[in-house]
């Protein structure tokens, strides 16, 4: 069931600007941006544009690393992961739209380590909505929201509206 967005929630573009301000001083030559399909990739592209620098970019799809495979099976739409740089000794800035249980980030880190041993992984998200089930925290956060367990926020993208948030109530 669709819901009203929280009144204190800025637009995705405003949140991306806020992230850029935090991240820009930390960008060095050994950095790479890695977006998690699908929302993280949109954020990565928007960030790269604003950061202006020529930073290597990669895409992760965590379908083959999820921990709920034995419960719900293979995710119906998997995309190839693509990291066009050497992960070994790289400082990775991992990007996702919404941080919730932390399970997606766990899967993404396992996937990254199958490519090599990064020097560091930092996490940036547009929204930290609470509800963590693993000891994972973001280093850069656009906004913190305190949502109930049945409230779900997601980032969507289409031609008419661009990046925008959608809230739904799910049992």
């Amino acid at each position: 069931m669709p819901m009203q967005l929280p009144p204190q929630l800025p637009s995705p573009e405003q949140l991306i600007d806020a992230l850029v301000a935090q991240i820009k001083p930390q960008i060095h030559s050994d950095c790479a941006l890695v977006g998690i399909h699908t929302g993280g990739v949109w954020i990565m592209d928007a960030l790269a544009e604003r950061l202006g620098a020529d930073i290597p970019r990669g895409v992760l799809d965590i379908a083959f690393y999820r921990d709920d495979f034995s419960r719900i099976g293979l995710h119906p739409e998997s995309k190839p992961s693509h990291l066009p740089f050497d992960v070994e000794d790289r400082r990775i800035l991992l990007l996702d739209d919404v941080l919730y249980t932390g399970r997606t980030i766990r899967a993404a880190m396992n996937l990254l380590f199958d490519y090599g041993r990064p020097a560091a992984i930092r996490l940036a998200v547009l929204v930290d909505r609470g509800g963590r089930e693993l000891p994972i925290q973001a280093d850069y956060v656009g906004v913190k929201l305190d949502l109930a367990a049945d409230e779900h926020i997601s980032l969507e993208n289409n031609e008419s509206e661009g990046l925008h948030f959608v809230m739904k109530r799910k049992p």
Partner: protein
Amino acid sequence: MSANNLQLTDDGRLRHLLTLDGLPARILNQILDTAASFITVTDADRDVKKVPLLRGKAIFNIFFENSTRTRTTFEIAAKRLSADVVNLNINASSQSKGETLLDTIANLSAMQADMFIVRHAAAGAGHLIARHVEPHIHIVNAGDGRCSHPTQGLLDMFTLRHYKGPFHNLRVAIVGDVLHSRVARSQIHALTTLGCPEVRVVAPKTLLPRDVENLGVHVFHKMEEGIKDVDAVLMLRLQNERMRGSRLPSAGEYYKHWGLTPEKLKLARPDAIVMHPGPMNRGVEIDSAVADGMQSVILSQVTFGIAVRMAVMSILAGN
């Protein structure tokens, strides 16, 4: 019970892969799309060339008929999914001591198997097993008699799509011993389901099933006409034992009329690809200059076969 009732769950997901006959395009495309994602698992830049999807699952390769290549590609696919694999060649095992097929399966199930990959000389062996295993066990048919070889058909579709794009633009010729080929049947079912507008079978009358037109294909009895202007030539293997029978004069005579030579291949479109399920009889159904030539994608088929089998196993194990 029809094959689809056995193959699909009540909500339409794949439970076993027994045949491509009657399998909806939605499931064929799901397998092909998933396989495309698995291709990157073996990228050179990955330190670890496997994914943890089937960690802790036990997959039994049970081959009642020899096939080193198919068994090996299933084994590699299972290992790239982090499953534990057990290979059994039953010729050399209990069957020679008189154990029935279902007793063999019951014993292996008691060893906590999650999936059986089955090759058997008898058509329908996979169906028989699927009817008797517990609901959490999945069956993949790796070739049964003359009937079907679904993962070969799927990897052929993957290869076609990879090189030639969407099926609705393609003209495809299947050439050779269609009568005895489980590969041809799987290819025909998949191509028609995926919307290929022109599927041709090209073979001597003695090597065609009598009802082949009912499968929705165009039949040609002259190779020169059959492969004219096609986008892909799918060659079939001529099994050695067939050459000794009465259906064919000799290997040399077969090569003259039905062997794919560089001269005959010129009749196809200039960018046509050549496929073969292997193992090839060079100088019988295919000339070495074609098999090793620029238009051959035969070795890509082998590579793609691993990703396609990874897709099938991971979709089944999750359903």
